[in-house]
């Protein structure tokens, strides 16, 4: 089996792969161009949120497309193939997290904001400091996430296109960045949403095909796939139970719990996820979006469970670890083993599409936050002659700057171990954003000082703990393996930083001014629960 797989990867046809990839890029750019020309009005609402004109079902697909990154597809499948059960643990956190969004955040956020997280937080606070804080946190999360995606794109190429070498990887990162900027500039949120919907359909369909195909080889008996994976693994039936990846020591177990908490609480604080709730007209449609997204994301993670064990069974851990992309190559190698170069090419193109859709979503979120929160409300204090045109212009320029930063950052970081950046983004989102959002929505006494404490406290504590963790120094796998200034034992800071930020929000609130005008909270609460006074969706 191993030899045929290696032959299949050697057969991996770069021309075929690039052609399929080009078809996707040209096809989606065409659609982005088409929907934009047909529907766009050049307003800020249109650029940031497509005028709130998508249906809940459409947005549910777009959320799945925005959320399911290449890390979840390639990373989780690979982790299951190598470490068995422990890879599955990730996907559970990523899924359960959506209940926080469904029950506590999506609808209330839709009813109280227009474009950004800052809108909700600033509803009853002092505008400038709280918007500046919200934008800082949004830009930090987006930057970490974007850097991880871009660096991952470079690593993927060596595997998927059979190209290696620093220059070729750099070129691919630049191409991803340029296409991403094109989606955002041409299509704004409407175009980006369409790209995400298309990608969600392709990704889930691709995963479904691989799942059914692999199951059919084992008589649709999942237990038999598990057995075959165990037979080919040095870990044997140890794959079936937790502990292969995180069970090594007490520290690694606590580290995993810390990661699990950050995943569950971080999702509903990710700015690019929050912004998606503004692309629908009502709270009811926002609810429907999350419902659809939960079904799609849940199904997808069930598929990755089968794909992971099937990759272990049909490709084998040795072949996976010897492939250029290591763990990330499990799913593409399985595609090659099942369907030869054509299926490999399709899955490779889907992986690229995944990166493109996610980075475009991050870029538009970050540029909206900069233009709307920082430029209009903080720098210009809301006093701009033509708010609409100005902020769209600023947002477009910001998107270009972010794209360039992402390309340069991605090229510089491509040889680094950047997997921790995604976990870091979730940890910041869970520490800085979620407590502040929940307090704003549910706690009458909460005030500006409390908001600043929880945002900056969460952001700074997360960053400080990461800098002094084994991720940065004091371990062989660290960014600076020779140095050792680590005193925090966990690679995932959430266990400390999340409770700390919740606490800081309370402390700040009581430290801050007592003078308190309940009427603004009355307005926020009534609007958040009823949708009264909501800006109506633009009719297309």
């Amino acid at each position, binding site marked *: 089996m191993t030899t045929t797989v290696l032959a299949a990867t050697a057969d991996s046809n770069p021309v075929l792969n690039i052609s399929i990839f080009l078809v996707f890029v040209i096809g989606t750019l065409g659609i982005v161009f088409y929907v934009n020309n047909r529907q766009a009005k050049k307003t800020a609402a249109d650029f940031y949120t497509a005028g709130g004109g998508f249906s809940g079902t459409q947005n549910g697909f777009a959320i799945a497309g925005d959320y399911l990154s290449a890390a979840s597809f390639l990373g989780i499948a690979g982790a299951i193939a190598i470490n068995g*059960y422990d890879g599955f*643990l990730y996907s*559970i*956190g990523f*899924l*359960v997290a*959506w*209940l926080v969004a*469904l*029950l*506590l955040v999506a609808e209330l956020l839709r009813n109280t904001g227009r474009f950004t997280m800052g809108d909700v937080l*600033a509803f*009853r*606070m*002092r*505008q*400038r400091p709280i918007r500046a804080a919200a934008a800082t946190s949004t830009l930090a999360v987006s930057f970490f996430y974007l850097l991880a995606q871009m660096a991952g794109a470079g690593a993927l190429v060596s595997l998927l296109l059979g190209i290696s070498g620093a220059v070729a990887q750099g070129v691919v990162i630049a191409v991803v960045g340029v296409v991403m900027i094109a989606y955002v500039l041409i299509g704004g949120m409407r175009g980006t949403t369409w790209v995400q919907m298309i990608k969600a359909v392709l990704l889930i369909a691709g995963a479904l095909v691989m799942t059914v195909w692999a199951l059919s080889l084992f008589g649709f008996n*999942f*237990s038999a796939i*598990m*057995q075959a994976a165990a037979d080919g693994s040095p870990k044997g*039936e140890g794959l*079936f*139970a*937790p*502990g292969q990846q*995180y*069970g090594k020591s007490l520290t690694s177990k*606590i580290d995993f719990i810390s990661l699990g908490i950050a995943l*569950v609480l971080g999702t509903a604080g990710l700015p690019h996820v929050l912004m998606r709730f503004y692309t629908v007209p009502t709270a*009811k449609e926002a*609810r429907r979006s*999350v*419902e659809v997204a*939960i*079904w799609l994301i*849940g199904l997808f993670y*069930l598929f990755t469970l089968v794909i992971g064990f099937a990759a272990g069974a049909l490709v084998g851990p040795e072949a996976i670890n010897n492939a250029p992309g290591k763990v990330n190559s499990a799913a593409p190698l399985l595609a090659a083993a099942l369907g030869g170069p054509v299926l490999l090419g399709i899955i490779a193109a889907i992986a690229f599409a995944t990166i493109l859709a996610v980075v475009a979503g991050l870029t538009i979120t970050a540029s909206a936050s900069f233009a709307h929160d920082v430029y209009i*409300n903080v720098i210009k204090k809301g*006093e701009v002659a033509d708010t609409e045109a100005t902020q769209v212009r600023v947002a477009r320029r910001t998107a270009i700057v972010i794209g360039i930063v992402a390309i340069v950052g991605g090229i510089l970081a491509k040889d680094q171990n950047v997997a921790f950046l995604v976990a870091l983004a979730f940890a910041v989102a869970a520490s800085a954003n979620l407590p502040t959002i929940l307090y704003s929505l549910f706690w009458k006494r909460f*005030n*500006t000082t409390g908001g600043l404490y929880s945002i900056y406290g969460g952001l700074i504590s997360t960053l400080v703990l990461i800098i002094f963790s084994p991720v940065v120094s004091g371990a062989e796998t660290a960014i600076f393996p020779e140095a050792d200034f680590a005193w925090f034992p966990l690679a995932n800071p959430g266990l400390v930083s999340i409770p700390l930020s919740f606490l800081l929000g309370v402390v700040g609130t009581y430290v*801050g*001014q007592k*003078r*308190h*005008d*309940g*009427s*603004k909270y*009355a*307005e926020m*609460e*009534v*609007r958040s*629960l*009823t*949708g*009264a*006074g909501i800006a109506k969706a633009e009719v297309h």
Partner: protein
Amino acid sequence: MSTTESDEQPGGSTPGAPDWAAAQASPDFQELRRRLRGFVFPVTAGFLAWYLLYVLLASFAPAFMATPVLGNINLGLILGLLQFVSTFAITVAYIRFAGRTLDPLSTKVRNEIEGGR
């Protein structure tokens, strides 16, 4: 969005704007608020506790999780899949609850506010 530098934005004083404080104090709104919080707070506490229990079992009781149930399908896999089942079930339950119990009341309160301008 207006820009002010007081600690809280002044609210409710604009002529013609809805009286939010009165709307908030209305029995219908209080009931809506009670129903929403009565559902989402306990359910959130429940699924977070259930998830935490699962993560703790996976970390500290791998032998328990390895207990075979059916072929190679063990307790760990079943508990993991039950996390999927509970997530789907809570989603369906909330959608039904919101559609039947929250939406009629929130529509009523909204119509009163917007009709009363």
